[in-house]
C-alpha cells in the first residue's frame, strides 16, 4: 500500500498537479498553500487568535460554504424547472414526486434560510469585535452590500415555486414599493410628479410596475425574478465575495488586538 502511494506521488501526473512534497515540513506547508489556487485565498500564516472559533464564530466561512451549497443544489434544481406560470408549480411538484433522491430542493431551501442567519451572525460578530474600525471600514461596506444581496437572492428565490405561499409573500413584500416617495403611485410626493396636469406616476408605470413587469405578481414577475435569482445576483455576489476575501487579506488578515 505504502509503495503504491509512493509510486503515485512520484508519478509525473501527480507531480504536475501538486508541486510540493507531503505538507509536514514548514517549507512544504507553505508551498501547499501558495501553489494551490483555492487555498491561496489564505495567507501562508495567520495569527493564532484569528483562527480561534470562539473569536470568529466561523460565520463568514459558513456563509461562503452555504453560498457554494446553494450554487450546486441550485444548478441541479434548474435542470427540472421551467419558469413559466403554467409549468413552474408542476415542475416543483414533480420534483418531489418523481425524481429519485430528490432532496436538492430541500437542501437548497434550508441552506438558503441558514445562509440568511449566518450572514446576520457574521455581521453581529464583526460589529461586536469592532472589526469594522480602520483599516477595515471599506470591507464592512462591501459586507453590507453582500448582506443586501443575500436577502435579495433569498427573496427572488421565494417566488419561484409559484404556490400560494410564494406569490402572496412576494405580493406583500413588493406592495411596499407602491409607497416609495415620488416614484410609487401611493407614495408621498407622487402627485407632484406631473406635467401640465398629467400625472406621471400611476399603477401602470411606477417603481412596483418596473419590479414586477405588471400590476400584480404574474408571469412577467416570475421571469424577472428567475433571471435575477439564477444569474444576476449570484454573479454580483460572487464578484463581491472575491473582493471581500481579498480585502480581508489586504487589510492585515482577521482583525486582532495590536
Amino acid at each position, binding site marked *: 500500500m505504502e509503495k503504491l502511494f509512493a509510486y503515485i506521488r512520484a508519478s509525473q501526473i501527480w507531480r504536475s498537479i501538486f508541486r510540493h512534497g507531503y505538507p509536514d515540513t514548514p517549507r512544504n506547508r507553505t508551498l501547499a*498553500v501558495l501553489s494551490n489556487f483555492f487555498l491561496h485565498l489564505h495567507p501562508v500564516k495567520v495569527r493564532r487568535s484569528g483562527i480561534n472559533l470562539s473569536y470568529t464564530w466561523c460565520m463568514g466561512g459558513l456563509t461562503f460554504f452555504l453560498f457554494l451549497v446553494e450554487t450546486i443544489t441550485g444548478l441541479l434544481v434548474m435542470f427540472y424547472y421551467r419558469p413559466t406560470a403554467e409549468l413552474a408549480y408542476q415542475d416543483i411538484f414533480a420534483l418531489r414526486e418523481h425524481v429519485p433522491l430528490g432532496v436538492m430542493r430541500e437542501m437548497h431551501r434550508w441552506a438558503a*434560510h441558514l445562509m440568511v442567519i449566518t450572514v446576520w451572525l457574521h455581521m453581529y460578530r464583526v460589529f461586536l*469585535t*469592532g472589526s*469594522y474600525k480602520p483599516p477595515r471600514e471599506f470591507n464592512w461596506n462591501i459586507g453590507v452590500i453582500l448582506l443586501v444581496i443575500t436577502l435579495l437572492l433569498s427573496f427572488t428565490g421565494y417566488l419561484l415555486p409559484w404556490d400560494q405561499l410564494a406569490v402572496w409573500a412576494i405580493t406583500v413584500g413588493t406592495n411596499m414599493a407602491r*409607497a416609495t*416617495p415620488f416614484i410609487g403611485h401611493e407614495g408621498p410626493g407622487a402627485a407632484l410628479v406631473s406635467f401640465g396636469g398629467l400625472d406621471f406616476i400611476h399603477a401602470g408605470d411606477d417603481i412596483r410596475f418596473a419590479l414586477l413587469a405588471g400590476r400584480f405578481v404574474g408571469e412577467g414577475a416570475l421571469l424577472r425574478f428567475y433571471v435575477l435569482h439564477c444569474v444576476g445576483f449570484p454573479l454580483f455576489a460572487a464578484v463581491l465575495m472575491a473582493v471581500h476575501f481579498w480585502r480581508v487579506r489586504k487589510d492585515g488578515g482577521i482583525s*486582532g*488586538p495590536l
Partner: protein
Amino acid sequence: MIDSIKDLADWLSEPTRYSIGTALLLLLVVRFRKWASHPVVFAITCVLIVAFFLVSWDDPNFNRIVTKPDNIPIIMMIGSLLFFTWLFLRRAVLNDERIKRGEPTLEGQYAKQKVHVWPDLVYIELICMVLFTVFLIAWSIEIEAPIEEPASQARTPNPSKAPWYFLGLQELLVYFDPWIAGVLLPSFIIVGLCAIPYLDKNPKGNGYYTYEERPFAINFFLVGFLLLWCSLIIMGTFLRGPNWSFFGPFEYWDPHKLEPMVNVNLSEYFWIYLLDQPRPENIWLREAPGLASLFAYFVILPPILGKTLFRKIATEMGPERYNVMMHLFLWFVLVPIKMVMRWTLNLKYIVGIPEYFFNV
C-alpha cells in the same frame, strides 16, 4: 398547573408586554452581565428553555406553529442568538477584567503567535464543512420543503406574510405606513450600517471582545439587532396570525378574532380634545401641531442635545459626522417612541395627510 403556565405565557407575549419584557430582559442581562454570563447561569437558562419546549410540545397550537418546516430555521436562529450573545458577554466580561488588571486580552495572548494555514486553518475549515454537509443532508431528508396550493390571484391567504426575514418590517406596519416601514426605514438601515465605521471614531475595542471600552456602540447594536430586528421577526412569525392579530403561543389561530381599533391622530387630540373645536379645513393648519413636533424633533433637538447631553460626542465627532449620526439615530429612536405612543395614547399618526399619502 400547566394550563396556568400556558395562560401566563399567552398573557406575557401580548405585543406590549412582549416588547417591554424583552427590552427589560436585555437591560438586566447587560447591566448584570458578569452574573448573567456565568456559565452556570447560562446552562440553567438553556435547561429551562429546553424544558419549556418539551412541556409545550404536546400543545396542538404550539406544536403547529413551531414545527412548520419554514419556521424551524427561526428556532435555530433563536438558539444561536442566545448562544452567541452569551459567548460575547462572557468574553467581554473576561476581557474587561483582564484589561483592568493590565493583562493582555484573550485574543491578545495569541495575537503575536503565527500558525501555518496548513494544517491549522485548513483542517478547521474542512471539519466545519463536513459537519455542516452532514447536518444539511440529514435535515433535508428528515423534513420536506413545503409546497402549498398553486398560485391564485383570486384567493388571498390569511394571514399573508412576507418572507420571514422581513417580518420585523411587516410588524412595523402596525405602527407606520408602508412608505416608512417598507421604504424609508430599510434604506436608513442600509445607509446607517454603511456609515457605522465612519461615525464611530472610538479607536478602542478593535479586534477583541469588550463592553466597557465602547458601551454606547455595543448597546446601540444590541438594541437595534436583537430587539428591533430579530425579536420583531420572532413576534411576526410566531405571535401574529390571521388579520395580523396577536395570538399567544398556545392560542388557536381563529380568523374571526378581531382587535378593536380606536386609534386617534395627533391632530384630533390637539383640536378636538384639547381646544374643543372641529379640526380646521386647511390641511396644513390641521396638521400644524404634528408638523411642528416633527420639526422640533428632527431640526431643533439635535443642536440642543449637542450642547447638553451629547456634548462630548458632538465635539469629538465634529459637525458633519454629528449631524449625520443624529439624523439616523433619531429615526432609530422614533420607532420605539411611536410604539410606546401607540400603546399608551392609541396614537395613530403624528402627521396624517392621507390626501398626499403623507402619514408619519
